[in-house]
């Protein structure tokens, strides 16, 4: 049985990854998960400078999901390299760093810095953040802006470059195409959907930041549909995510068009979710006589 999948230059031992922001820097879960068994560890999003994040409440539970507005709190690239990479290097798994910037220049500089680090195997660009140069519109909602910022980053890195797409757009396939045209090796989708919840007693938003990103099983059908649509539009591999709780959910994404999957919110509920999902996928392959996991990608039968 072959579980190996290729994402750009990366050969992952299996298609199960962690979703950025839900697995800390790997350390937080190493007590529960043998990191060696994961296809890749995608760490919490990093910026050039440390970021303090948003005021509280930062999270609120919603039906079959949760809203978060952490505000991209992180320790910054320098501290990450010094304090977190040595731990991650002890494991035989691919380490992918999620990163973001407030400006194009910050993205480029972050990518340049991360590309010289020993022990890193890939970069995931979060383009779902506001572009300070363009009146806070989101980098990931205008295909021209996406093309521009991804092209600029592409020139500065030889590492496998994954672009994480925002679902808060009319046509996600257009965004995926822009990333592909700009030289991205893969796209990952979906990031959280913008949402809001209100306390009707106080009439205040339940999150201090008013809006937040919705994740969890509530968003899964949207994510599956988007992976399906992006698969029709691009040739580069897709990393599918959005409310994956078990191996059935993971297989749904693979069949819709994903080459690999990322487990996010499920880590909060079950710290062993990633491994249980991997084991369940192996079971599925045995049961259905599947030799190569990659042979299932995009095999949804819509006729």
């Amino acid at each position: 049985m072959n579980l190996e999948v290729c994402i750009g230059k990366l050969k992952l031992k299996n298609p199960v990854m962690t979703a950025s922001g839900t697995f800390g820097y790997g350390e937080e879960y190493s007590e529960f998960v043998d990191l060696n068994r994961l296809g890749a560890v995608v760490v919490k999003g990093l910026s050039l400078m440390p970021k303090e994040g948003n005021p509280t409440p930062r999270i609120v539970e919603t039906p079959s999901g949760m809203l978060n507005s952490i505000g991209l709190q992180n320790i910054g690239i320098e501290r990450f390299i010094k304090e977190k990479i040595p731990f991650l290097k002890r494991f035989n798994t691919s380490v992918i760093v999620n990163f973001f910037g407030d400006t194009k220049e910050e993205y480029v500089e972050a990518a340049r810095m991360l590309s010289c680090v020993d022990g890193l195997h890939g970069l995931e660009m979060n383009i779902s953040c506001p572009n300070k140069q363009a009146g806070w519109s989101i980098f990931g909602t205008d295909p021209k802006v996406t093309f521009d910022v991804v092209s600029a980053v592409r020139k500065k890195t030889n590492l496998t470059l994954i672009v994480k797409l925002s679902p808060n757009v009319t046509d996600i396939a257009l965004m995926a195409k822009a990333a592909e045209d700009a030289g991205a090796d893969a796209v990952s989708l979906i990031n959280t959907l913008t949402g809001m919840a209100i306390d009707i007693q106080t009439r205040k938003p339940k999150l201090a930041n008013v809006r937040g990103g919705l994740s969890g099983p509530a968003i899964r059908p949207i994510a599956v549909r988007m992976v399906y649509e992006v698969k029709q539009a691009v040739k580069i591999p897709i990393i599918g995510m959005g409310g994956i709780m078990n191996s059935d959910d993971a297989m749904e994404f693979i069949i819709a068009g994903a080459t690999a999957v990322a487990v996010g919110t499920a880590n909060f509920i079950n710290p062993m979710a990633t491994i249980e999902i991997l084991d369940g996928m192996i079971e599925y392959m045995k049961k259905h006589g599947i030799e190569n996991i990659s042979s299932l990608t995009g095999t949804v039968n819509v006729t």
Partner: protein
Amino acid sequence: MSRYFTSAIIENIALNNNHNLLTLNMPEGTVEPLPGQFYMLEVNRGTAPLLKRAFSLFRRISGGFQVMYRIKGRGTSLLREMRKEDTIEVLGPLGNHYPVPPEGEAPLVIAGGIGIASVFPFLNNYQGRASVFYGARSGDEIFMLDELKAMSKEIFISTDDGSLGTKGNIVDVLNNFLNSNRSDINNYVLYACGPHTMLRAISEVSASRGITAYISMEEHMACGLGACLGCVVKTKTGYKRVCKEGPVFKSEEIIW
């Protein structure tokens, strides 16, 4: 040693109409909890509600442990429905713990409402040493009084409606106590758990009287493991995670 395990319910009894005491079994090889630590408990098998719920360790018993909880929302309502022999997934013990009071220290333990659950194991561990200040809305929300009396050096009760103990706020009771026991002030250390407003008042007592206070904080929490960064509190050295650097903080660290 595992901190993630399946636990069978031994007992889930009502203490009054909106408070329960849950007894869970603790399989061999699980980590020993310390006073002030907490557990994340599964409240249902489906996806709504999605997240586990955080509860303080109330008491370690032979073969298991107890949590005391107030039925407040959907999660705790579902937990109340759990019956003997039902099984739930448990993550913990998590977070830091109350420090061990050094020889010669006179702990003053302040609990507001369900906050008693968090300080109870501390009192149990250091029997006969602490003066306890326990406040609640009314007398029927004061729990385990006989046991608390047996564990503590002395106990002061207050209720909002005056149905048990002094009528009024427990922090006022504490202040009166401190006003009349000033000679011992250098030996006092405060340990508190309760509503946000009470902890803030304790923090003011600590600052104005120069008494160290350890307070157990609460925030919306998803993972309990320090990954989601949801449960932070603002401190003088930046945001800190209630689940990892807390739940117990020195009150002087907190920015209110």
